């Protein structure tokens, strides 16, 4: 069954690839550990099952073996942790320069997106707001100022590997860069009340060339 | 069970010191000092007083070392909690 796959669904953001790569590294490590330990367990159970007249060995431990598995595990996991810090900082801290900025305000149970309008600046008169629809250009970093009006929500773009809680009283910077035009889902991943399950929006990624056209159309619509 | 050592404990002397430190604290708090030194000095005095109470009135000074360790054990956790969470802001 397709559902049972351990492969991740395709990702459509620049750092999605990095995240997926880390995931596969961990999948390999844990996969090997899983097979080894569970295999060993089963083998031991068969090999040393109770037999009439057999007596267990009186062993209290093995210093070298214990040192080995402790060290090996330590090296693997700490290496993994250190190796992941780069991606993490890239995703959560290093917002690229020249990003297009929008404000996403969550509230029970909708996503309101405020666009900068034609002047490209937020906080000016030509800003306009759309409900549950985030439209961005392709291949350009987008910086979202994530806010919430009431409780905690979580801005989740599964296909782009983005997830960030929206905290009331704070404005959190989230960025991503889509790699392919198309429509994607915006989900809410943090329990936010009885309508949590239906709090969804749509992310539309336009080919960079079409984005201005979309903006004009959206403006016209907003003016009505 | 109670060691003879603390029979001689200078309970009233400690009381005097606690009193003096309290007065000192109040005056110190209203001195025109930079915020850091204000807080620092006050915390030093408060910890000093707390230690006096723990060591003499609660007799920690006269207890076995193990109890001492036991009593101090949650303090690192308290520090960890505050120091880490404050990084958020």
């Amino acid at each position, binding site marked *: 069954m397709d559902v049972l796959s351990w492969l991740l669904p395709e990702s459509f953001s620049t750092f999605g690839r990095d995240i997926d790569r880390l995931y596969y590294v961990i999948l390999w490590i844990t996969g090997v550990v899983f097979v080894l330990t569970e295999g060993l367990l089963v083998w031991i159970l068969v090999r040393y099952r109770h037999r009439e007249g057999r007596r267990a060995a009186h062993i209290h431990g093995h210093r070298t073996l214990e040192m080995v598995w402790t060290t090996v595990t330590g090296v693997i996991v700490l290496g993994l942790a250190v190796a992941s810090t780069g991606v993490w900082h890239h995703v959560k801290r290093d917002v690229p320069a020249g990003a297009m900025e929008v404000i996403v305000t969550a509230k029970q149970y909708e996503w309101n997106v405020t666009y900068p309008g034609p002047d490209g600046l937020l906080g000016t008169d030509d800003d306009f707001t759309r409900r549950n629809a985030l439209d961005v250009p392709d291949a350009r970093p987008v910086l979202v100022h994530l806010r919430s009006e009431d409780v905690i929500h979580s801005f989740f773009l599964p296909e782009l590997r983005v997830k960030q809680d929206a905290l009331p009283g704070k404005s959190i910077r989230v960025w991503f860069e889509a790699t392919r035009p198309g429509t994607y889902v915006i989900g809410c991943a943090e329990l936010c009340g009885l309508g949590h399950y239906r709090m969804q929006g749509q992310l539309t990624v336009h080919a960079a060339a079409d984005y201005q056209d979309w903006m004009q159309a959206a403006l016209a619509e907003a003016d009505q | 069970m109670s060691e003879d050592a603390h029979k001689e404990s200078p309970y009233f002397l400690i009381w005097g010191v606690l009193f003096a430190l309290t007065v000192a*604290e109040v005056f110190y708090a209203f001195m025109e000092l930079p915020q850091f030194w204000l807080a620092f000095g006050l915390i030093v005095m408060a910890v000093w007083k707390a230690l006096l109470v723990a060591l003499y009135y609660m007799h920690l000074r006269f207890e076995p070392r193990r109890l001492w360790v*036991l009593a101090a054990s949650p303090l690192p956790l308290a520090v960890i909690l505050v120091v880490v*969470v404050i990084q958020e*802001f």
Partner: protein
Amino acid sequence: MSTAAAGRLPMPGMKVYNLKLGMWIFLLSEVMFFTGLIGSYIILRFAHPEHFAAPGVVLNVPLTAFNTFVLICSSVTMVKAFAAVEQGDQKGLQRWLLATIALGTFFVGVQAVEYSVLSSEGFVPMAELYHAVGRGAVHAEGAAEAAVVGGPLYGATFYAMTGFHGAHVSIGVLCLLYVYWRARKGKYSAASLGGVEIMGLYWHFVDLVWILLFTIVYLI
């Protein structure tokens, strides 16, 4: 069977008997409880300094300094009660216990007065009702809004910390009454003073917490 148990409690060589050990262990959890409260205060104050005020602006420092002194006195009377029972001095035990009870009650009383004055000045825990204007200042008609000192977090954290401390003192006074009642019945002696000693541990701990609270809440 009972001989076995009798020979065992406390274990040979035990220096700290169970009751006292138990009280110490309980106090560790109290440390963590106050860590949660005081820690939250420190964090909230650090994050929102504008919600708080300089010492003495809203809170009555001289009054509380005096109250601190009262509590310190109660610590010394408590420890004297213990010293008395160590010497088998029943009268002394009772007298010092009574003094401790009186001082403890007085402390709670002062706190109650403090609370009622503060809340009448608009310094309340309820966020929406907070409108403290500070000591000395009076609510000018209509101008109350402008003069508010600090913000709701101040009231909430203040009452949570001092309130839980006050609750500890009150519970302590109740326990002291019980200890006093037992002392009157002659239940304690130099060879059996566990009850007095753990009462003292609790009482001094509560005093110790107050020393920190006074500094952190009123003075810094």
